[in-house]
């Protein structure tokens, strides 16, 4: 093995080590079992190594590896039975902007402090993972790349070969579906909707009409 090849292998190994867990997590979210996820990551790393010399900017290595993984998945796994395809999408017409906050605020859920925040704190990792697992795959991909892996919309668009606008809408849709799944879980825990829309309107805007409009923490807006 020449020195150049050895250096290249070492550099690639470092990059692979750095991003292995994130790649494995993303692969697991796309595949339906650990075996396929391991296989997908292995193929990604093999392909990454084969084409490593073409990567000019190693600061983009993470998004480059994710692109390879996603394309491998599309090419080799999409038509397998393990993959739940987009046809399971509940459809654009169904509650495109479901809000867990609104549902909780209309429910009989009672907790010390802010009930909605307390509910979030009570959620377990398994409950969240289960809700993510149930997302339609195309939405799940955009959602995980944005909310879990911190990629920008532009990077996700490149990885998934879709327009930025589609990335934005898939992420919004995924969040809405995820919140609906969490609300289903909340209902299974016994939380019920207790207030009718007449009791509490969808939006209870004070908008300066009430004298005691709270002083809001401006940190949120910085």
């Amino acid at each position, binding site marked *: 093995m020449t020195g150049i090849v050895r250096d290249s292998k070492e550099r690639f190994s470092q990059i692979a080590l750095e991003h292995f867990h994130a790649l494995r997590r993303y692969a697991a979210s796309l595949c339906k079992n650990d075996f396929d*996820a391991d296989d997908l990551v292995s193929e990604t790393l093999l392909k990454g190594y084969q084409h490593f010399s073409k990567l000019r900017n190693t600061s983009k290595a993470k998004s480059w590896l994710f692109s390879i993984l996603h394309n491998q998945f599309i090419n080799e796994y999409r038509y397998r039975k393990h993959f739940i395809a987009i046809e399971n999408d509940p459809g654009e017409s169904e509650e495109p902007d479901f809000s867990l906050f609104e549902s909780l605020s209309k429910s009989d859920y009672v907790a010390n402090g802010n009930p909605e925040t307390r509910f979030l704190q009570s959620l377990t990792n398994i409950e969240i993972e289960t809700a993510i697992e149930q997302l339609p795959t195309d939405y799940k991909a955009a959602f995980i790349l944005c*909310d*879990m892996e911190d990629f920008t919309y532009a990077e996700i668009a490149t990885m998934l070969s879709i327009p930025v606008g589609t990335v934005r809408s898939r992420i919004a849709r995924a969040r809405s579906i*995820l*919140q609906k799944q969490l609300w289903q879980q909340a209902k299974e825990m016994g939380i019920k909707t207790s207030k009718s829309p007449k009791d509490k309107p969808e939006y209870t805007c004070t908008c300066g009409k009430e004298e005691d409009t709270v002083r809001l923490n401006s940190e949120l807006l910085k």
Partner: protein
Amino acid sequence: MNALRKKINEINCEEAARRFNDFIDNYLKGTAKEELAHHIENCRHCFDRLEFEILLKTKIASVAKETVQGSDDVKNKIYSILSKMQKDE
């Protein structure tokens, strides 16, 4: 000083909620952001909802960081993949 203040359009709660995703992903800029800021400064309900959305995103991100799937022996896994590659060369 007040005379120099730019007039900010009022938006309703529905419009504010439509902008939440762009805001939490840091894509909301300029006038659209100012209008949202102005709205939630005056609307407790929207403020709470936006805070909830941000907390939910943070919670989900923390799940990803905590959940490391697969074998702990990552190095060996990667080296075995690269060794296989070397044999194939």
